């Protein structure tokens, strides 16, 4: 039950940061998400993002900054076993599920649904 609470609070807070970037700093949604992804990658490199996931579960792994962290994690894990080339082969290792399913189901959506308005 505690896990749900922290997922809600931390996930909500990350969205609040995004909302502040949209409203106060007047960034576009694309700028906001790219900034958060880069921040996630840097936090991942510093080893700070995984403790956050351990603490908040989906509250840290569902927001888009976890995408940056997962890219770094995949690259570093493969680099450990295969050397430098692992950075290139491993970068999509962890995030593959998210990207592939977005492409596959996004395409299926385009087959089924007609544009609105």
């Amino acid at each position: 039950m505690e896990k749900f609470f922290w997922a809600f609070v931390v996930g909500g807070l990350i969205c609040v940061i995004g909302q502040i970037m949209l409203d106060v700093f007047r960034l576009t949604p694309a700028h906001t998400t790219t900034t958060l992804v880069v921040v996630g990658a840097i936090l991942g490199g510093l080893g700070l993002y995984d403790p956050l996931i351990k603490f908040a579960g989906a509250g840290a792994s569902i927001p888009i900054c976890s995408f940056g962290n997962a890219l770094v994690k995949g690259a570093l894990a493969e680099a450990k076993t295969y050397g430098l080339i692992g950075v290139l082969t491993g970068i999509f290792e962890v995030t593959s599920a998210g990207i592939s399913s977005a492409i596959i189901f996004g395409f299926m959506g385009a087959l089924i649904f007609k544009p609105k308005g």
Partner: protein
Amino acid sequence: MSSQKNKKLTPIQQEYQAFAKEREPKKRVGRNILRAFFIGGIICTIGQGLQMIFIKYFNFTQTTAGNPATAILIIATVILTGIGAYHKIAQFAGAGTIIPVTGFANTVASAAIEHRSEGFVLGVGGNMFKIAGPVIVYGVFSAFVVALIKITIQWLGGM
């Protein structure tokens, strides 16, 4: 609008800028932040629930349960986008629906559906990552740089 930018404008244009700024609808930042917190939190809580279901009933571990949970959230988002419901939630929730992975799936699905009329190859295929592309480009490049820096530091014997 910075004053430096204003200097290049004629007095009439400056007058118009002031006029436009006055008429600009006031953004209710406090209300938007509350909504983003609430909806964003709910989406993450649903994700947490899905992860727990996959751990409990489908023999996933703490680290691998994120994948099927993300996939389910993405499928749900594509359906909600297709029937036009995601757009309505997003208007209410702002960043609460943009920041979670569902926002990424929504941009992919909505771009794909929207450009269907331009054909399936150039329309759907070509535009699918029109909005979601920057996230992947900057994510991958920054991850590449971060990984190289970390590997170099480890190689030099630090960390």
